[in-house]
């Protein structure tokens, strides 16, 4: 699409025997927050670095704002980047760090000063202008890195796992910050992470990657509710896979042990693999209507209790119930599982 902010076409990158990018096609829309999500080695960082110009693709084309930048060095691509390891210039003040890009491009002093003020306002740290990076906390350094990258008004701001080095609470705070700044500036953000919750929270669209390819590119809701493959379903959130036979006439799937689960699937009759999320299952006393099982494990998480229940056929299913259970359901106890109508399955 020529209207895309960044367009990547058939990008290939190999390191020896490993293919880090396998003919990738991707369009990033103007103003969107797009996340590349995957575990290490899936190629997300390589893809970002190629767009940034820090790596050269073996084949393919990269366009930014309609310009072919494939052979251009990073400084001519008008981008911004925030790294995981901060990378603020240690011998310069915060103000000089933020103004670095504009100064390197020869902007007049007055303009630089105004822009630095603007950026400091944006990240809400105007009082730190004269400090050095060594005097700042991790969270503050990342915000300054963000300001520095945005100061040059880049076409795209790229963030390479920028919150990975921070503790959980700080990470949550900065995630909210990022979302706010994205909204206020209206810039295009390209985000890389392996943390699915982070991706779900921040993104307009997510590209789930594996083995140098994009498995699925969709909104967070679509990725969660309508994963395109078993890999994506398994990668995002908890999921239990139950194998059975789909009978469209009776709108149900029969499991190996004979138990039946209601299902409405856009598939034909035959063997299927159901993908069931914990919130789609209810825990009921034994003997009730549903699928019989035994509690294998109980674990408490913040705000919910997670049960691992083993079915008669041997499969294990995770069930989540809000709050800490009033009645103690202990491991070894028999329970019944009531499944909501299943809508997600993959043919086997």
């Amino acid at each position, binding site marked *: 699409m020529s209207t895309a902010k960044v367009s990547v076409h058939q990008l290939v990158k190999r390191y020896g025997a490993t293919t880090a990018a396998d003919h990738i096609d991707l369009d990033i829309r103007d103003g969107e927050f797009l996340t590349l999500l995957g575990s290490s080695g899936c190629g997300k960082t390589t893809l970002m670095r190629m767009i940034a*110009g*820090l*790596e*050269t693709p073996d084949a393919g084309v990269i366009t930014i704002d309609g310009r072919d930048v*494939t*052979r*251009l*060095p*990073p400084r*001519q691509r008008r981008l911004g980047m925030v790294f995981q390891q901060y990378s603020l210039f240690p011998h310069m003040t915060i103000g000089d760090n933020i103004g670095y890009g504009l100064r390197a491009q020869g902007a007049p002093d007055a303009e630089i000063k105004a822009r630095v003020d603007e950026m400091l306002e944006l990240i809400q740290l105007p009082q730190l202008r004269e400090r050095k990076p060594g005097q700042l906390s991790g969270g503050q350094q990342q915000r300054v890195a963000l300001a520095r990258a945005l100061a040059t008004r880049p076409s795209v701001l790229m963030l390479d796992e920028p919150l990975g080095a921070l503790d959980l609470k700080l990470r949550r705070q900065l995630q909210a910050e990022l979302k706010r700044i994205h909204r206020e500036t209206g810039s295009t953000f390209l985000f890389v992470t392996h943390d699915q919750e982070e991706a779900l929270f921040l993104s307009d669209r997510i590209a789930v990657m594996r083995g140098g390819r994009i498995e699925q590119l969709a909104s967070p809701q679509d990725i969660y509710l309508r994963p395109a493959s078993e890999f994506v379903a398994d990668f995002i959130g908890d999921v239990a896979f139950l194998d059975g036979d789909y009978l469209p006439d009776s709108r149900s799937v029969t499991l190996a042990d004979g138990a039946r689960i209601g299902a409405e699937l856009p598939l034909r009759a035959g063997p299927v693999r159901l993908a069931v999320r914990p919130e789609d299952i209810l825990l009921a006393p034994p003997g009730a209507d549903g699928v019989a099982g035994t509690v294998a494990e109980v674990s408490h998480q913040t705000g919910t209790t997670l049960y691992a229940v083993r079915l008669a056929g041997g499969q294990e299913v995770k069930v989540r119930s809000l709050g800490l259970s009033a009645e103690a359901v202990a491991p070894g106890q028999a329970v019944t599982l009531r499944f909501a109508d299943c809508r997600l399955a993959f043919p086997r």
Partner: protein
Amino acid sequence: MSALAATPGTPGRGMRWLALLPALLLVTLLVALPLVDMGLISFKSESFGQIQPGFTLANYIGLLTGAGNLTLFVNTFLTAAAVTLLSALLGFPVAAAIARAPEKWRGILYFLVAAPLLVNTVVRSYGWLLILGRKGLVNEALGALGLIDAPLALTGNYLGVIIGGTQVFLPFMILSLTTSLMAIDRRLLDAADILGAGPVRAFLTVTLPLAVPGLIAGSVLVFSLMLGAFVTPLILGGTAIKYISVAVYTDALVLFNLPRATAMSLLLMVVVLAIYFVQKRLTRQQEA
């Protein structure tokens, strides 16, 4: 990926070699080429201070077979070996003291060992002249105490060179040994203690074997440095002793026999390089 690498649009490998060029030129023109030149000279003969055309092996043959020359090599090696041995004996207690010392003392102890290295060797040798000379410290003191009638000859001979050389190169041995000793886990010594080993036995069976790498490294370093030493033998030994570096100097600047001087130098260099490579091989095996 950087100012000097092959990102799209930046000059790559050519730039890299261009940046290396001046440094390479410096070493090539001032070390490599002159050494090669020198090598060539060693195969020539001279007469009345002029280099004669034509190649000959006479210099090398003379050096390796002439009786006087053999003494030269043997004496040089023995002197260097003596310095090495002395350095090891003197250096061990110091290294042990540093390794055992509490953290705050270690800095000063290190300093006192390393500081002399930054003082000119001429000055250091001069100091020894003052100490060992006929009217020097030692002789005056011994004379005043009535222990000797005539001054002892402590300079202008191998003894002076050995003493002076030890003082010059001892710090290298100490620093090397200290590294080794500090790497020894104290618990090994505690274990030996618990097992009933007396101090001497613990030293022989635990400390000494583990200090061997440092000892070898230090010895190799001191030996090869002493082989190539010039100032100390020159000032403390003079023309009375047979030492390779002094002989080279005499041949080159006094007798104007450049071919023989260069032949000797090359032989010396081959030995020093051989020692260097052997030591590298040893340390590499150690780390494996």
